[in-house]
């Protein structure tokens, strides 16, 4: 096999490159004359305009086929996720740690709760109606103003001791902190067959000598009233706000890190997905120092 590649010196290569950039003999820049460049650019502009048009058309058609109220599929949303406030994350998951005697360590946590509950003030809930039925609030038609459906009110005061109204410190100051548990919204999701879902918090892997966790739930029993379900989507229920449950932990051991898990107990809520730690339950580390 013979050498097919001749070695070119660097200067030769540079010269060739220069000639490629601008060839004075033929008036070519980068291998094309100016008019050729114009033509080829026009072609590409045309081509891309057409392609963009086709893409836009496809997306437009797609949007036309979508139901504005309900998503077509809810493959991933079989069971709602559960979140916790205050939400401070450590290296792995929620990690709440503060010192009772040092209010700087918990003022942020309290602040988070106040902020969160601002959305549940009577003023921000005024577009919703009062519900008392404790049953699923099915609405077939759009009877609310602006062709929407009614949403039920959930105001912060329903959380009583954990509303921030009676105790602006949410119990953090005395070491009996409130945690607000929120279930994610899923369109048309019915959590159970008649009994209201409720939150249940417990220590995960309690030490043998540890006392069971005493929890006070607000609203009482830690239930999410059924009249908040089903959710009809953002467009149908623009004023909907998730029902909440507050859990006040009364006997958290001091100066040790405990792992608390709050589960939602309902027929259609599962909390045993090994991949998803937030499905149907929320876990958090808690360390209250003194």
């Amino acid at each position, binding site marked *: *096999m*013979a050498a097919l590649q001749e070695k070119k010196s660097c200067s030769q290569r540079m010269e060739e490159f220069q000639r490629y950039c601008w060839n004075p003999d033929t008036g070519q820049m980068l291998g094309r004359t100016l008019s050729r460049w114009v033509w080829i650019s026009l072609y590409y502009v045309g081509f891309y305009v057409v392609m963009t048009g086709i893409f836009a058309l496809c997306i437009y058609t797609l*949007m036309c086929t979508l139901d504005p109220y309900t998503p077509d599929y809810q493959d991933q*949303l079989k069971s709602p996720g559960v979140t916790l406030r205050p939400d401070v994350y450590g*290296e792995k998951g929620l990690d709440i740690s503060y010192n009772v005697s040092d209010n700087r360590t918990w003022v942020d946590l309290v602040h988070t709760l106040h902020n969160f509950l601002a959305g549940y003030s009577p003023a921000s809930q005024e577009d919703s109606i009062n519900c008392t039925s404790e049953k699923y609030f099915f609405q077939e038609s759009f009877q609310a103003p602006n062709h929407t459906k009614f949403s039920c009110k959930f105001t912060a005061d329903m959380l009583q001791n954990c509303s921030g109204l009676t105790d602006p410190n949410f119990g953090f100051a005395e070491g009996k902190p409130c945690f607000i548990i929120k279930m994610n919204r899923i369109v048309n999701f019915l959590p159970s067959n008649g009994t209201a879902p409720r939150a249940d918090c417990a220590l995960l892997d309690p030490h043998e000598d540890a006392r069971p966790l005493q929890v006070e739930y607000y609203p009482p029993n830690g239930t999410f009233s059924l009249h908040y379900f089903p959710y009809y989507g*953002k467009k149908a229920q623009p004023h909907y706000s998730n029902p909440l449950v507050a859990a006040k932990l009364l006997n958290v051991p001091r100066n040790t890190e405990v792992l608390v898990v709050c589960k939602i107990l309902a027929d259609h809520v599962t909390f045993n997905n090994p991949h998803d*730690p937030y499905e149907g339950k929320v876990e958090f580390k808690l360390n209250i120092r003194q």
Partner: protein
Amino acid sequence: MTKKTLEIYSVELSGTKDIQQTDERNGKEKYRGLKNCFEPRKNHHKEELRKELDLDDHKLSIKELEKKYGTNIITGLSSTQVAELLARNGPNALTPPKETPEIIKFLKQMVGGFSILLWIGAILCWIAYGIQYSMNTSSSLDNVYLGCVLALVVILTGIFAYYQEAKSTNIMATFNKMIPQQALVIRDSEKKTIPAEQLVVGDIVEIRGGDRIPADVRLLSVQGCKVDNSSLTGESEPQPRSSEFTHDSPLETKNIGFYSTTCLEGTATGMVINTGDRTIIGQIASLASGVGNEKTPIAIEIQHFVHIVAGVAVSIGILFFIIAVSLKYQVLDSIIFLIGIIVANVPEGLLATVTVTLSLTAKRMAKKNCLVKNLEAVETLGSTSIICSDKTGTLTQNRMTVAHLWFDNQIFIADTSEDHSNQVFDQSSGTWASLSKIITLCNRAEFSPGQESVPIMKRVVVGDASETALLKFSEVILGDVMEIRKRNHKVAEIPFNSTNKFQLSIHKTDDPNDQRFLLVMKGAPERILEKCSTIMVNGQEQPLDKNTAKAFHTAYMELGGLGERVLGFCHLYLPADEFPETYTFDVDAMNFPTSNLCFVGLLSMIDPPRSTVPDAVTKCRSAGIKVIMVTGDHPITAKAIAKSVGIISANSETVEDIAKRLHIAVEQVNKRDAKAAVVTGMELKDMSPEQLDELLTNYSEIVFARTSPQQKLIIVEGCQRQNAVVAVTGDGVNDSPALKKADIGIAMGIAGSDAAKNAADMILLDDNFASIVTGVEEGRLIFDNLKKTIAYTLTKNIAELCPFLIYIIVGLPLPIGTITILFIDLGTDIIPSIALAYEKAESDIMNRKPRHKKKDRLVNQQLAIYSYLHIGLMQAVGAFVVYFTVYAQEGFKPSILINIRVEWEDSNVNDLEDSYGQQWTWYQRKYLEWMGYTAFFVGIMVQQIADLIIRKTRRNSIFQQGLFRNKVIWVGIASQIIIALILSYGLGSVTALSFTMLRPQYWFVAVPFAILIWVYDEVRKLFIRLYPGSWWDKNMYY
């Protein structure tokens, strides 16, 4: 000129003197040439060679030799001596050319091509993990896995390529294994047959006709021994050997026989003076293997392509790294983007595909008798623009065959086809009866026994080429020659010798009524004629007058002018009264008449062209390949063969032809008028390189005759100066430098020496020129098909790359994962891209010019642009539509996806709202993201099916090419779909692979785009066909 030729040709049978003369002249030149060709490169080698040539064993007497090697010519060496020498000098075998160590070959595969980019990707992955780990000890191992996967990909493709290469080398290895050679040696006063490998210096060996000389030997006693030195010197005439010291140069002297040359006839006893690599052949072989292999055209093309793709990958990668950093992404994220971009841009599976494609073609070629040693040489043959072909054996059948007969004042044509089947000339004349008798009887050649079932033309014959030709000729026409000879008992014989220039034998006839002895004689026509006083015409003896003598000369000239070897035949019935049955003939005293004989006829022989060659040469010509004949033979013969096979076409003339036609001197002819040229080695020697260049450019039909194998090298270099890709055929050891020098060296599988086979890139198993043409066709096809394969493979790179770019700039959830990309590149796309190798040619590829190695690149601008910016872009759009469809139907409309990236990927956000107000946990989103990967993957896969179909042709419509002609394409499409189905539905639950189940309808979302791609490409091809040479053609044809 003609006269001289005739002499040379007619005297072949006895022409030792002439041969000797030319030999001496040529010989010196040859060896000088041989040394010269290595001089500039390998000085120390040259010295070694010269030192070795300073051999003086040929000058020593037998006594001195015995002393020098401690041996005895009667008893031979003792076993102890042998063991000692064998231990010291090693076995008598050529060391195979030094192989690159396997581990180096393996490592080369690991770092070659794109591997280096992937290694960078893998290392970046690990670095990214390192950074993550230093910031957060519990960070996810994703990057480590990705790095490992990338490394694994490199290693696996490396192992694959290595395995492929090893497999093709193995074919060679099995081919090289020959039946071990045996040698008859005298040791411990006993004659023993031992494997030639065990010979040592000082051994006394006996050599018989037909043997290969087992080592370099000093001949001690010789009986009529002739050797064929052609593998060493390229000289095709048999060389007589004797025990006398005749020349100072060991290469010229007659008392040395060289390793691996063949003893044609006679017997000899010799003393081994050199074994293994120290033999002359060993020296030359090791020199040739020292000339390094350089890059094949396809290797250069692939390198060029790797540079383009790597350039695009690296520049886009760096560009977006900078963009990412300036968009305030973290450096760590930017590194991960960079990895994604590299992985998306590198067609990981392509090099393996190319290897498979090449080896598939190699296999196909092997079936057609072209054995390719170096996979890449498959394509080289396709780009060949000049073939320098040997004559003997390649263009011709390599056996003397009776071509013409002259008797009864008429020239008859004999059948020279491979099987001699129909001899149609008139056999009724009485002259023919006599002539056939002479041919049969005055012939010493015999069939080797035990070949009754073998077709006559294939039987092995003991005897020289001319006698063999005559024997077979008469066997075909007359039947059992041996039986005829038995019936006509031979009573005396004068074998051929250089002074007589004839061969004579006296027989009892098989006619019981005729008691006369028959004297038959053959030899150089003019010599035979001298001895005759009568001539037989139509079975009747007539006095030989001036007219008949003139007719004889005309016929002789005519046959000689055809480049044929002419023999004269005459006979005489000895009068019974002078030579009674009991008469004792004495061949030394010549007690019988050898003059006033009766001339019977002439017979001319030629090594006829193979019947397939003229067609093959025509094909070459229409394929724009120049065929140059380079032969050691005489110009007249060379020209005759060149004309008969079409190397010199029927209507073209040489300068000499024109001169002869116009009756003017050669110098007066306008050289431009001549298309053909016959150049001899002597003329070539006096030419400057410029003159040679001029010769090569000005004449389209060139024959080099009487060239030494070293001049072949000069010719090859001359051709390469014309920027041609040169294929060279050769068989001798001395051809090996030219074979190496050539872009593709082609060795002959049957006649070729090991050294030539080692130096060559390809071996013609049937020694047939026509096989080269099939090779060229395959080579061209593979180039076209590789183009298609690469275009197919490159296209989806854009569809894989765009997601990353959009992800960085627009902040969508990542549309396709790195692992998923690997599954396209190394999963669904592999079989389809190999399937393109089975595509038939679009048009007659043998009707176009060979590709210009600098201009017609494998991957040109048009190919890259069309693949990347047209089809690739359409694929990206189509795949994005699938992606958006999946997201929108699951709740995330395109508008909400923009700039969602940071929240989307934050594992601490577990209530991210979609377009319907639903809230998603991180894992739910992640799973949706994988669904997006799968959707994007399916989108690309579906459009790659369309891409595969459009790549079947580059110019013709798919419907012209036939959608179903290449069945393998459909296997490829099926494989794509099946692999995708398995990945989605079978492995959808394996989270590490990030594939999910996909609703059936999503598989069809990209179908309209696939159809669009097909239509667009059909339109492109239509315009290319409608407006050849137009702006469209120039920009759109790849």
